[in-house]
Structure formats: structure tokens, C-alpha cells
């Protein structure tokens, strides 16, 4: 309201100094994606225009997220509170190192998938609304990573859930509806549990602002049912992340949509669950996490073993990669269960590398199916002879997924293993090693059958076995090679990523700077304007 001469002291309720432009970086990714998604929805029928506008938008998203990460590295967490209200009453968007890094990496993955979609999503898929859904999905993902309010986190979960339903049924095939139904019901149950937990939390704390919760956690009376609350949160996020007893929706649905959509889901959605899990258990309720750590560790070990066995058993390479996604979640959950800063930094590093690796693996699977002639390991073959460059690129990504040197997948596994051995959880370390071994065998099997075996032995006409060129198409080659290059670079030179995840883990464990950015010295630093 424009009431400049009111008798009330507005500074008690409102932020009266103009926010510096840098703070806009916190909301910019979400605003950009929602606005662009809405705009693309309006021009849904202009099939050609959609792709180029969406790619320009995703590139801008990467730049904005990079700017945000740079600012957070430089000056600590950044906060903007909606509508000028003072926190904790206004909804805060707060980016710390963890959130900003996740937002940047997921934007890169989305850009790669967007480029791949130029070829993979045909005109019908675009009219159906692939690009608007992609933009809204990214709005949900970025919002989840950047929000500083736990109810707002729930809202972003809903946004990404609804757009993921749209992406999942793109094309309206019966098979997709079947997959979408399982996905939708399990995820709706998880979000409802999350909402119930948020209600509980509000009843206990009287606030939904994460910084405020972190501030008040130590001063609560001892009778507060915080372990129950944390348990509810852990269950809800574990369902989202596909942790073992509640993971069955993922293999049932992730192979049904278009492959780009699978790639986006495998790369991003489960990691949002892990992000929320880390945010709530490590930053908000560290004491209660301690009490639940054994349960989480057992769930993590079971997830690791079951997922790796599942990957071994699959013939359809899309389903196989679905199990690899779950196996990765097991590793990250193990880090949450151990809970030391070293383990948390391992989990964060795992999440960052896994976003890229899993997105890339699904794209590799699509390419392999195109060159090898089938999705099934029983009938595909001859890729090595038909396209040597593609075979090498996929080999690198397979190494990264299995956690073998010299690719980026190695380092998070090493950090997590070391963290597990440091606290004497030998069985958890053993589960990780067995999982890595089994995944290596599963991917080796893919390579043996799909790449090295001549088509003739797979029972297909050998006449098809002529060189297929570099990749099947330039627009599909670019993201796959880009992702492989990223994993190779950060595998050979992991220092920046390791440091980043260590700093992110420390700031999660000790959220003083996070709280200060919402409540404290940020106001002082901004001052000077009466």
C-alpha cells in the first residue's frame, strides 16, 4: 500500500530498503521458468518456435544459476523475502551453496535434455506441450532447491509433480497411462505425508521458515514429538527418492515415457527428494536424525543391494538404468545415515555427479537403441562396429555410473566409503562395495551384449551392420558428448567439486550463515538507506 505518512512504524513489518540486484538472482530462475512456461503454453501450436525459445530460456537459466552460485561462493547465502514482509512472515527464498549448486547442475542437465528433445520430440509431442511442461518442471525443481520455506517447498514439489504427470503421459499410450498411474498414486501419497508432516511441524514450531526452524530447534521443550516428525519427513522424502521398501514405482514407470522425459526424471526428480531429505535431516533436525540413523542405514544398504540385483536381472536397458538410479539413491541415503560432514559432502557430491550421469545414461540408452536396433539386450548388438565414437562415449559414462576411475563417479563413492569406514559401519561399506561390483557387472553385460556382440549372433540380419557414422544425429550427439566430457573433466580434476561439496556440507551442518542471511546482518549490510 502506498501509505507513506502513516503513523504506524512500517519498519517493524516491512523491508524498507530496496534489495540489491544480486538478490534477484534467487528468484530469477523460478520466475524465468514459470513465465516462459506460460508463454510457451500460449504459443503451443507454433511447433518450430517452441524449441528455440525453450533452448534460449534454458541457456539463460544455466547462466542465472551460475551467477547465483558465484554470488553464494563469493558472499555467502542469498535471501529474498516475497512481498517486502519481514521474515519469518514473508516467504523467503534462500540459496545456500548446496541449493545453488544443485540448481546449476540440474539446469545443465535440463539444457542437455532440451537439446536432445529437438530431435526426439516430434511435432505432435510439442503440440501436446512438451516444452511448456519442461519449463514448469524446471520451475518446480529450481523452486525446491532455492526456497527457504518448508511449506513453499511442498508447493514446488506439487508444481514439479504436476508437470511430471504431463510429461509422463506425453503421447497418451495405454502403456504410459499404466506407468503414470503407479507413479502418480505413490507420489501423491508421499506428498500427502509431506504435507501432514509440515502441519505437525507448524504445530510444534509455530513457523515454516527453515532458518527460523533451525534457530528454534535447540530451544524447544524436550517433550516435543520431533522424532515422529522427522520420521514422517524421512518416509515422505524416501518415497520421493525411491528408497528400497518404497521404490517400486520407479522401475514400473520410468521406462514408459519418451526417453528424454525418462532422462529428466532419472536425473532430477529423485535428487529433489534427496535434497529435501538432506535439508530437513541435516540442517533442521540433526539430533533426531541421529536417532533414526540406524533405520536409514539399513534402508540404504537394502536399497543398494536390491537395486544392483535388479539391474543385473533386466533385459530392457531403460529398466536397467532405472535400477541404477535407485542404486545411486542408496549411496546418497547412506551418506545421510552416517551424517558426519564428510559423509554429507559425499552425498552432495554424489547427487551432483549423478544428475549428469543418469541423464546422460538414458540418452545413451536411446542412442544405443537407435543404432543397435532394439531396447532389449536379447536382440541388440553391433554398436561397436557401427559407431565407434558413440561406443567410446558410452563406455566413459558407464565407467562413471559404476564409479570406476578416471570418471567423476569415482570420487563420491570414495568419500562415502571412507566416511562409512571412519565410523566403523563396515557392513554399510560392504554394501556399497558389493553394489559397485554388481553394477559394474550389469553395465559390463550391456557393453558385452549390445556393443561387442555382432548383430549376426543376436539373431538379426548381419547386412544391417554398416557403419552408422558418428552418432545417429548431430543434435543428439551434442548433449551426450557434453555430459561425457563433464564427467571426464571432473573425474580427472575433482578438486573444485570436492571443495564445493565440502563447503556445502559444512554450511548445512552449521547453518549460522543461512540464518544470518535471512534474519541477521543482511539487514545491516544492506543499510545506509534511511
Amino acid at each position, binding site marked *: 500500500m502506498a501509505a507513506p505518512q502513516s503513523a504506524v512504524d512500517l519498519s517493524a513489518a516491512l523491508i524498507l530498503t530496496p534489495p540489491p540486484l544480486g538478490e534477484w538472482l534467487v528468484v530469477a530462475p523460478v520466475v524465468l521458468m514459470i513465465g516462459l*512456461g506460460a508463454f510457451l503454453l500460449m504459443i503451443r501450436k507454433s511447433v518450430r518456435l517452441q524449441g528455440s525459445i525453450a533452448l534460449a530460456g534454458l541457456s539463460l537459466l544455466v547462466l542465472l544459476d551460475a551467477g547465483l552460485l558465484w554470488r553464494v561462493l563469493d558472499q555467502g547465502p542469498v535471501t529474498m523475502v516475497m512481498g517486502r514482509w519481514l521474515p519469518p512472515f514473508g516467504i523467503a527464498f534462500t540459496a545456500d551453496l548446496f541449493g545453488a549448486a544443485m540448481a546449476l547442475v540440474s539446469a545443465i542437465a535440463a539444457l542437455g535434455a532440451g537439446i536432445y528433445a529437438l530431435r526426439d520430440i516430434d511435432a505432435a509431442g510439442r503440440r501436446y506441450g512438451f516444452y511448456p511442461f519442461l519449463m514448469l518442471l524446471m520451475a518446480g525443481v529450481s523452486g525446491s532447491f532455492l526456497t527457504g520455506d518448508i511449506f513453499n517447498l511442498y508447493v514446488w514439489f506439487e508444481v514439479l509433480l504436476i508437470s511430471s504427470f504431463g510429461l509422463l503421459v506425453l503421447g497418451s499410450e495405454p502403456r504410459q497411462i499404466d506407468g503414470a498411474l503407479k507413479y502418480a498414486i505413490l507420489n501423491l501419497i508421499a506428498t500427502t505425508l509431506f504435507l501432514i508432516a509440515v502441519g505437525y511441524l507448524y504445530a510444534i514450531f509455530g513457523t515454516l521458515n527453515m532458518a527460523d526452524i533451525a534457530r528454534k530447534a535447540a530451544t524447544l521443550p524436550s517433550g516435543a514429538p520431533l522424532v515422529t516428525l522427522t520420521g514422517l519427513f524421512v518416509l515422505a522424502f524416501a518415497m520421493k527418492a525411491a528408497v528400497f521398501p518404497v521404490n517400486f514405482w520407479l522401475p514400473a514407470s520410468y521406462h514408459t515415457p519418451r526417453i528424454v522425459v525418462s532422462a529428466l526424471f532419472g536425473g532430477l526428480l529423485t535428487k529433489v527428494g534427496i535434497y529435501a531429505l538432506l535439508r530437513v535431516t541435516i540442517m533442521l533436525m540433526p539430533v533426531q536424525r541421529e536417532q533414526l540413523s540406524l533405520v536409514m542405514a539399513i534402508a540404504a544398504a537394502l536399497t543398494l543391494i536390491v537395486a544392483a540385483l535388479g539391474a543385473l536381472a533386466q533385459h530392457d536397458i531403460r529398466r536397467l538404468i532405472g535400477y541404477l538410479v535407485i542404486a545411486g539413491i542408496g549411496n546418497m541415503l547412506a551418506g545421510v545415515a552416517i551424517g558426519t560432514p564428510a559423509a554429507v559432502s559425499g552425498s552432495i557430491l554424489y547427487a551432483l555427479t549423478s544428475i549428469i550421469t543418469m541423464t546422460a545414461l538414458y540418452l545413451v540408452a536411446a542412442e544405443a537403441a537407435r543404432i543397435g536396433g532394439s531396447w532389449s539386450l536379447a536382440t541388440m548388438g553391433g554398436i561397436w562396429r557401427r559407431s565407434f565414437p558413440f561406443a567410446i562415449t558410452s563406455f566413459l559414462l558407464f565407467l562413471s555410473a559404476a564409479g570406476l576411475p578416471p570418471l567423476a563417479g569415482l570420487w563420491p563413492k570414495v568419500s562415502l566409503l571412507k566416511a562409512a569406514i571412519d565410523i566403523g559401519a563396515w557392513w554399510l561399506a560392504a554394501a556399497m562395495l558389493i553394489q559397485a561390483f554388481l553394477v559394474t557387472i550389469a553395465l559390463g553385460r550391456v557393453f558385452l551384449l549390445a556393443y561387442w556382440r555382432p548383430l549376426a549372433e543376436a539373431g538379426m540380419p548381419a547386412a544391417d551392420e554398416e557403419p552408422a557414422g558418428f552418432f545417429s544425429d548431430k543434435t543428439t550427439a551434442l548433449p551426450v558428448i557434453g555430459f561425457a566430457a563433464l564427467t571426464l573433466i571432473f573425474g580427472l580434476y575433482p578438486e573444485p567439486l570436492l571443495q564445493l561439496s565440502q563447503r556445502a556440507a559444512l554450511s548445512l551442518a552449521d547453518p549460522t550463515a543461512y540464518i544470518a542471511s535471512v534474519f541477521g546482518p543482511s539487514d545491516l549490510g544492506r543499510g545506509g538507506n534511511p
Partner: protein
Amino acid sequence: MNTLILRTVAPFVTALTLLFSVFVLLRGHNEPGGGFIGGLIAVSGLALYGIAFGVGAVRRALHFHPMAIAGAGLFLSTLSGTISLFAGVPFMTGLWIYPHLFGTEIPLSTVMSFDLGVYLVVLGAITSIALALEQEPGPEADERQSGPDGPQKRGDV
């Protein structure tokens, strides 16, 4: 539905309902009402029109595709929040202007344009759901299922 009474009354009722929905939308700033409920009221008017004259008539009357209307609403709401960038206040802060038109002060605000966006989102989204449900499975719907297990049931209609 093919009754004379409904067909005669429907245009008037729809017009009144749409008018009422705008009234509820504008009233919403200080009293019960607002974009969401206003949008729902508008959809109920359009649904009645559809029941009386068929889905095609509603689509023609709307001119734009309902989803495009929803997109425009979302876009408008996003813009309303972004205007605060140029006013030097945080995102989503309400900003007001008071133009005088024919001697009357008319308070306009970004809050209102945001609510108008909500109205359009609800109008577009729910209308497109309602129209999809009301639509009789015609040749357009059959086209998708021309596979071996989806024989054309209404092939000769």
C-alpha cells in the same frame, strides 16, 4: 442437451454468470471472492453453454484455446510479480496506482492483475477439463486409437 427451454435460457444465464464472475473477481481484494472463485463461476457458465449448444460452440465463443488462456493468465501473474523489480522492492510486492477517470479515483494494483491472472488460469484450465469431459468421442478421439486393438466403433457416423 436438446431442450428448447435450456437452449433459450442458456445464453442469458451464461452472460449473467460471466458478469457475476468478474464482479466476484474484483470484489475479492477486500471481501470474500477473488480470482479463483471468480474463475470457477465463469467456468460453470461456460459449462452450461456447452451443455446447451455443444462443445464446439463454446470453443468458437472462447476464440482462444482454453489452455492458451490459462497460459496467458500464468504469464500475467508472473509479470505482476516481476514489476516490483523496477520499483526497487522485493518480488511480489503489491504496487498501486491511482488514476483519475471521469473524476473518479480508480485504484489499480499489481495485486489485482495477479488475481486477474489467477482468474484466467482457473478459467482456462477448468474449461479445458470440462470441455474434454463433455466432448463426445468423435472422429478426432478415434484417430488416436487406430491401432489393431482399437477398431473404429463409430466409423460410419
